[in-house]
């Protein structure tokens, strides 16, 4: 039974990271109907930014919460800028083109970022610094680290912030309007370009947040780290109903738990296949996701 709880804790902590990345996919999909393949690589750049800024701020080992907070903010800002840049240079000029064009572009951007990072920073994995001291608590036989608790709380705070942003602010209203019908939103005075740009910024910042939380728990940074994580987060977004913010959070948690339990109960080598099996099952059985509504294809 203690083993079960241990997997539950690990699954939740992995799941929140998936959920944070999934939110970026879902937001961009909501406004542009585009799977932003490059989102996973914004996550990767966020992790590298965290690594370098932590080194710049202070030496290895002397961790503090202030330093962790500074690293988190720097990484989120850099990634937000990158996300806006990608949107401006690669996606905006193609907005009127067929969706296939945008999809190929997104794959291209992703491939460019991954391999560019490999050229710049070599393919060798690097160790993510310990930003603060972590203690391990025991609840019965279940180990929980303060790192996991803090990561979980930060992630929940970010999601709550996003929920507020989308449903309680003018920007959120604009975003939902663009998502619903961009041309009508434009007629009603919504600055469509700016809204989409900010959507990318927010999604990318969340990805960077996820990257720092991920780096704290799995301290290994490499150019292709985003690939698999990003795909799984995308599955989480589809699972919850893509375009649906709370759905993506639930999808992330479900996926994290599913993966930990499959890995924990003797099938660890199939870990990477779990997400795709779930994806195929959900697409065949309920393509609109758990919380999504089915939308008729426009002709």
């Amino acid at each position: 039974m203690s083993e079960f709880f241990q997997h539950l804790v690990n699954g939740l902590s992995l799941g929140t990271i998936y959920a944070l990345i999934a939110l970026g996919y879902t937001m961009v999909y909501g406004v542009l109907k585009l799977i932003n393949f490059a989102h996973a690589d914004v996550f990767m750049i966020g992790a590298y930014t965290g690594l370098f800024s932590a080194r710049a701020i202070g030496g290895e080992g002397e961790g503090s919460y202030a330093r962790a907070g500074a690293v988190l903010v720097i990484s989120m800002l850099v990634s937000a800028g990158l996300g806006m840049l990608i949107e401006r240079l690669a996606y905006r000029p193609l907005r009127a083109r067929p969706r296939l064009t945008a999809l190929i572009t997104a794959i291209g951007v992703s491939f460019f970022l991954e391999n560019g990072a490999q050229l710049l920073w070599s393919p060798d994995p690097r160790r993510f610094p310990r930003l603060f001291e972590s203690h391990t608590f025991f609840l019965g036989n279940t180990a929980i680290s303060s790192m996991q608790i803090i990561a979980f709380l930060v992630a929940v705070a970010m999601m709550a912030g996003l929920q507020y942003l989308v449903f309680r602010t003018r920007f959120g209203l604009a975003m939902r309007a663009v998502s619903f019908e961009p041309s009508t939103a434009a007629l009603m005075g919504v600055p469509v370009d700016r809204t989409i740009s900010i959507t990318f910024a927010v999604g990318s910042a969340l990805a960077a947040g996820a990257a720092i939380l991920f780096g704290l728990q799995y301290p290994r940074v490499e150019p292709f780290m985003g690939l698999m994580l990003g795909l799984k987060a995308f599955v989480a977004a589809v699972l919850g109903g893509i375009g649906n913010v709370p759905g993506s959070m639930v999808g992330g948690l479900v996926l994290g738990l599913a993966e930990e339990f499959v890995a924990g109960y003797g099938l660890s080598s199939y870990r990477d296949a779990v997400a795709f099996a779930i994806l195929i099952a959900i697409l065949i059985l309920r393509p609109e996701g758990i919380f999504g509504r089915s939308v008729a294809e426009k002709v």
Partner: protein
Amino acid sequence: MQIVRAWAPVAITLAILAVVNVLLPSLNEDYRVHVLLDVGINVMLAVSLNLVNGVTGQFSIGHAGFMALGGYTAAFLSIRLAAYQLHGVPDAVSQGLFLVLALVVGGMVAALAGLIVGLPSLRLRGDYLAIVTLGFGEIIRVLIENTEAVGGARGLSNIPPWAGFFAVYAGVFVTLLCSRRLLASTHGRALLAIREDEVAAEAMGVNTVGYKVRAFVVSAFFAGIAGGLYAHYQTNLAPKSFTFIRSIEIVVMVVLGGMGSISGSVLAAVVLTLAPELLRALDQYRMASYGLMLVLLMLARPSGIFGTREIWELWPLRKKSKPDVDRELARPAGSP
């Protein structure tokens, strides 16, 4: 006479291939021959993927998975077949027959996977389908990595070296011939109709579901054959050579050459395979530039360099005009 006329080009091509095969130095001594075979494999992969991505307009990014399935199945089979020999025929003939058998079985297994991947395309379009093909490709790789019978993550070695220049280029020839004939047939026209406007095609009585699945099956079959040939001149296979990155390389060839142009795919496959070999210094930047190339192409010329035309339909060689499908391809989404 009809039969002679239909089969003469086939016989002539095979004869030429056989002659070149004799003149070429043997495989394991010459690096250039190895590159030549790589070119052939990539041509097969690009042309077969073009049937789905370019001709039918259903974006698939898991081609390496089909290649892996075909390659592993064929290799697994021929390792066992290598212990036998047909009586009363020369070694070369017996090996050739075994190779063909292994390749066809490998192709069939890949085609079966293509059928399974094609089925979700009944319900999914565009981006979702792309992700599902990617997922299938990755699942295939994970399954191979976990199958001890084919060496697991270590890979499969001691595959009999049965495929040389002749086998690979006969494969290229058959792939080209089949896609060319397919495009000129009713089936090919239906596939093109689906790419241009799926709803209109459906309304005109095209069985879009059936044709999309068929395109996947045929494409996967040839990818499987290509994988089998690859296995038989590499003589070893590793799951890590069939990742997402391999699939993207093939996608780049199709997109660069032109979405729907067979000769474009061939040319792009040849150029993109040879360029890094000729310019060693470039190799480092190859992958990053693939990404940039996709982005720039989509910005400047979304239907690829040759668009939907074949190379001989371009300006200096063109005899009669053809409606400009490129412009049609680039029309905004949602417009009628």
